[in-house]
């Protein structure tokens, strides 16, 4: 199990709480930002994307992608090495060469 700060999270959509958009976003962000080491005072944010099959892909950059882009030599390969946690969430760590490729 890796113990460093992850670069991405794949969370179950059931994590969302509340009946308003702001509440649901807040519930996910509040959970994700400490895990991702987000520093709001310096302008950092956790960005939440709805993915199929009830999953939420969360990263510190809204331009991050799950896989290497279609126009990249590694198209289709994951940009993260995923570690499944005991609560069912997944923590992602960027693989070599994935840092500036989206």
């Amino acid at each position, binding site marked *: 199990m890796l113990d460093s700060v992850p670069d991405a999270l794949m969370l179950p959509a059931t994590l969302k709480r509340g009946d*308003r*958009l*702001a*509440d649901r*976003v*807040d519930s996910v*962000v509040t959970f994700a930002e400490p895990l991702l080491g987000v520093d709001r005072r310096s302008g950092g*944010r*956790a*960005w*939440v*994307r*709805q*993915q*199929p099959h009830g999953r939420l*892909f969360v990263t510190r950059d*809204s*331009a*991050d*992608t*799950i*896989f*290497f*882009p*279609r*126009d990249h030599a590694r*198209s*289709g390969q994951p940009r993260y090495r995923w570690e499944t946690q005991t609560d069912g969430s997944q923590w992602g760590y960027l693989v070599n060469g994935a840092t500036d490729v*989206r």
Partner: protein
Amino acid sequence: MAISKAQINWTGVSFFPTGLSSVPITRVTAGMFSAGGKLLKFKGDTDLYPTIISCPDQEPNASFTTADVGTMFGFAPGTGGALAAQLNDAKAVTGGAVLFAMANAVFENASATGQHAQFATVTGTWQAYSSDGVTNPLSFTRV
């Protein structure tokens, strides 16, 4: 004050053309982000109602209407970048606003309209693509 159960007014609307400075879009009168889902229904044999509904197609898109015709017409159709906007809490309560970000947003069109003795408006539209074909280009966070 508790967060209201409504959102009102867009602020901080900006388009970030790739490689260029951000362009603020002000005097906004309407805004829209859409997940762009499209459903495909199947019926066969003696089915009266659909027996399968699938969502094989999602094309996120956005549009903003503003009185600033000049700025919107300054974007050339096909210009790629990122689009961001903030939808505020109806009572401006802290924590009630939501930030939208659309990565890989491609400006589609500017359509202006004006009537006699009325303010002219222009609606700009964007479509978004996913660079890996899997990641949703539309994301959210809180302010």
